[in-house]
């Protein structure tokens, strides 16, 4: 191999890697399929989506996910699921989640109990 400098790469200078037999082309599908990864940081916590890995099957996806997403911080469990098995709403339909201002009856803030209690206390004090 004609290198303009003396290579330090053991694959080049010790293993003498053979000349490539022409241009290498990776075929479509050769890098397998994608799996979404969910990470549980501690017992009792939800599994949270952290990213995805490419793997030939779910078992290996778990192995790769452990290497990719659990090699540093705390993790007690991982889930993987085929990306194609995730069903989601269209991003364009985001407006259907818009909260209606009329829906305060669903919120704790929609019930003003203190006002009524204070009013009641005031009226009973006035009578005394």
């Amino acid at each position: 191999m004609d290198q303009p400098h003396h290579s330090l790469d053991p694959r080049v200078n010790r293993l003498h890697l053979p000349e490539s037999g022409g241009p290498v082309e990776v075929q479509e599908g050769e890098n397998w399929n994608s799996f979404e990864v969910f990470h549980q940081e501690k017992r009792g916590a939800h599994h949270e989506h952290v990213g995805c890995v490419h793997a030939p099957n779910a078992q290996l996806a778990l192995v790769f996910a452990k290497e990719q997403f659990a090699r540093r911080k705390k993790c007690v469990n991982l889930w993987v699921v085929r990306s194609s098995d995730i069903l989601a709403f269209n991003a364009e339909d985001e407006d259907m989640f818009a909260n209606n201002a009329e829906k305060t009856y669903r919120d704790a803030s929609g019930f003003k109990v203190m006002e009524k209690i204070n009013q009641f206390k005031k009226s009973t004090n006035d009578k005394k």
Partner: protein
Amino acid sequence: MYGGGYIFDEPNKRQLKEEQLHDDPAKLAEFEARIARGEKIEPGDWMPSEYRRQLIRLIEQHAHSEIIGALPEGTWITRAPGFKRKLALIAKVQDEIGHGQLLYNAAETLGKSREAMINDLLSGKSKYSNVFNYPAETWADVTVIGFLIDAAAIVNQVANAKGSYGPYCRALERICYEESFHLKQGHDAFIELATGTPAQKQMLQDALDRWWQPIMHFFGPPDKASVHSQKLMEWKVKMASNDDMRNQFLDMYVPKIRELGMTLPDPELKKDETTGKWSYTDPDWDLFKKVINGGGPCNVERLQVRQWAEEHGRWVRKALMNPNAAKVAPVA
């Protein structure tokens, strides 16, 4: 590592302008308003074709840089000086490969398959950060890479993490967290040589002298010569200009080099305290272009090693393949 501030664009690939003209003006206005409000774009959203193309180019080159960037350092795992340095280097190289995977996933959400990206790398069509076309000749080179190239990449990646494309931001968030370890272990190794024996200091000084020009090249040509449009800034694809990032890097790291008694091979390098701007000798931009286009000392070796890995790993990938599985892209 290793998102170079400079993203190579093939001059003959700009004909997409035509396609850009066919973007629905109402949708485009809505898209731009969303970005102006500081909202993120997600994979299922409508986006202009030029935004998609530029992002694929950016994220793909960033991914390739992570993978190729692991080669000059990986070479030194077998001869790292001491057990602790060896452990740290193995961990760092593994992180870089992991970053490559995260970034390929982010680029895939935009519609280009991982195989297509790898093929473009192997054929030389797609570029990677230019600094990795130089060899790591001594341990001090590994130290300079680990400290200063990572530092430069962090400047770029922290800026890009505030960009508009959700999957890229999420990948960068994780990457920047791990980079903080890379930078610290690089700084630690750098200090050890700088405060060591005369031979260690000399080795470090020689490595600094060799790497200074590639480091100045790292953020790409000066703004006055850069073709990157205002549009990419508006769309929050490019988050800071080449000169601004270079200036930020010099401001943060030149003092850290000089405080250890090391020198930099540029007599013009100094800061104007009133403007806060650094001045320096313009690096050789013709050399930069020559190296990008294959004329660097390691271009051939880098791609050869990468091709060799693909060829010799093929039987493993094939043996594990599930022929009945239809191909899908990541969802987020």
